[in-house]
């Protein structure tokens, strides 16, 4: 895994230099880091218990005491927002990482090995790609006898691994007959080593892009589940904020401050993650690397 290590250890300064040159990805990075900080520092930023007994007057617009106002019973929405960031990012990053590991392993190996194993796996991948994702997620969450953020994460992984696997497989397949792969084979490298030491470093930037999209999709799916009232346990999230906003009449009351922050946050985090992709090509493509 020397190649991966090499890419990962690529010094911090040159990484920052690449982001600095790519203004789009710099914007993305700043957005993502901001949300990560909001999530990590949640206990220090939230002055009130987000779901406990009411902490102030209800239906308050943003003020100094309540930067995002309060909801129908007086919960502080800023506190809900920062704790909600945790759930979104936890589920998103965990699911993204798991899809990444699953998709890279299955996709690269399958594409390299080829043959019947590959054919069979791709049949399954195609079926998963065709099944309607959100309805399937809803179905699984409703019927599975387990609950909580981890179950949500796993269900999202099960329903969304196929896309990344297919992309990685297509890449890997295009490398399998390349001379340098044959050279590695002639030197005695086995399928696993060829897949991860020889092929993977070449498609690292695509793998990273895939990870960003998986994270975005996972954050969206989690929010959707919470919005439908399939909340991941007894927690607040951006999705549950919108769920309560809808069911408690935020629209009729015109309480935009209850609705705007969680949705805008979902849009911004997705935007930030996708924008970061513009730096990955330069970071992980050896041809573009500046030494």
């Amino acid at each position, binding site marked *: 895994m020397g190649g991966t290590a090499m890419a990962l250890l690529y010094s911090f300064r040159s990484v920052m230099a690449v982001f600095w040159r790519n203004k789009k990805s710099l914007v993305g990075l700043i957005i993502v880091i901001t949300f990560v900080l909001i999530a990590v520092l949640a206990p220090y930023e939230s002055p009130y218990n987000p779901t406990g007994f009411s902490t102030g007057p209800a239906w308050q617009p943003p003020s100094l005491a309540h930067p995002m106002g309060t909801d129908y019973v007086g919960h502080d929405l800023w506190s809900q927002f920062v704790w909600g960031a945790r759930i979104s990012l936890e589920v998103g990053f965990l699911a993204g990482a798991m899809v990444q590991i699953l998709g890279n392993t299955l996709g690269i190996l399958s594409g390299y090995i080829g043959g019947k194993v590959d054919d069979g796996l791709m049949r399954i991948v195609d079926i998963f790609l065709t099944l309607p994702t959100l309805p399937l997620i809803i179905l699984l969450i409703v019927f599975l006898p387990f609950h909580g953020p981890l179950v949500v994460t796993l269900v999202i992984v099960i329903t969304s691994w196929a896309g990344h696997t297919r992309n990685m497989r297509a890449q890997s397949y295009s490398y399998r007959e390349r001379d340098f792969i044959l050279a590695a084979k002639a030197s005695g490298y086995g399928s696993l080593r060829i897949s991860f030491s020889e092929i993977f470093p070449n498609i690292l930037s695509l793998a990273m892009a895939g990870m960003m999209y998986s994270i975005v999709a996972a954050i969206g799916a989690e929010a959707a589940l919470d919005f439908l009232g399939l909340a991941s346990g007894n927690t607040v999230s951006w999705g549950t904020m919108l769920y309560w906003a809808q069911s408690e009449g935020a629209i009729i009351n015109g309480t935009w401050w209850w609705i705007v922050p969680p*949705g805008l946050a979902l849009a911004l985090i997705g935007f930030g993650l996708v924008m970061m992709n513009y730096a990955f090509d330069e970071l992980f493509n050896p041809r573009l690397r500046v030494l």
Partner: protein
Amino acid sequence: MLLTGTFVAALLIDFTLPRLMPGNPVQTEVTNLIAAGFTLSPEAIKGMYALYGYNPNLPIYVQFYDYIVQLLHGNLGVSYIFFPQSVSYLIAQRLPWTIFLVSIAVAVSWIPGTFIGMFAAGKRNAKFDSIFTPLLNFISSIPNFWLGFLFLIFFAADLKIFPLFGAYSNTVTPGANLAFILSVLHHAILPILSLAIVAMGGYVIHMRNTMVGVMGDDFVLVARAKGLSNRRIVRTYAGANALLPNITMLAISMGAVFGGNILVETIFTYPGIGYLSAVAVSGEDYSLILGIFLIFTIAILVANLMADLLYAWLDPRVSLI
């Protein structure tokens, strides 16, 4: 082949999941219905068991056979929250609304999105790109149901120029009259825009990327060398070739459109199967949830089939068996 496989997978999922639940879901529903004041005859209870071939005393393959036989009769079970209406009746009532919303949303996002992407690829200067690309990425990152939320709070609750919920006003009589049609359109505009704006962002990005790839191909270079204008190259040469992958993309995106539609219909309390599934989820109506999943799958398969036909019609290299 793929379509059959997907359908079989959906059937297996629908068949297996209720059987993984702890306890006996049919018994639970029966008990709850009786507690809710319904009087259930022994025949009715027997009928509920027969649906889905649910019978723990029979071997699993017999249950599956019974289940398939029920399905072939168009029997998807009885709803629990809308008892005693059948699932297939409920779906048949709601499905036209969803097809109406989704097909218009796809049409008004895919067609302009593809054209915008096509011409944006011809315009490739840094300044345009540095505004255009982030903007599109931002638009396609917006959760569509949240956009619907904003539309409702602004255009419906505040400005009162659009209705807050439903598919048509209760002052009109459904039928082929102008008042009804206008009311339907009035109610559909905001949901359609919520779906279409976000989806269009994705279609533009995809078309533009495909176009940029195609514009580097040899045949485009030849056309350029022949002195054809940029506009003509974009329209006739590269555009036609980039269109094909975009149709594939369209088929793939149908899953996301149907999924997003669940949330958008819920926001607008729109009487399609998306909202129906949200209702089913909150009411723990298992038969309804299972039936809706099957219908969503079939809808996507039909969309795929149509994309295939469109593809074959446009691509001379492809022939359908």
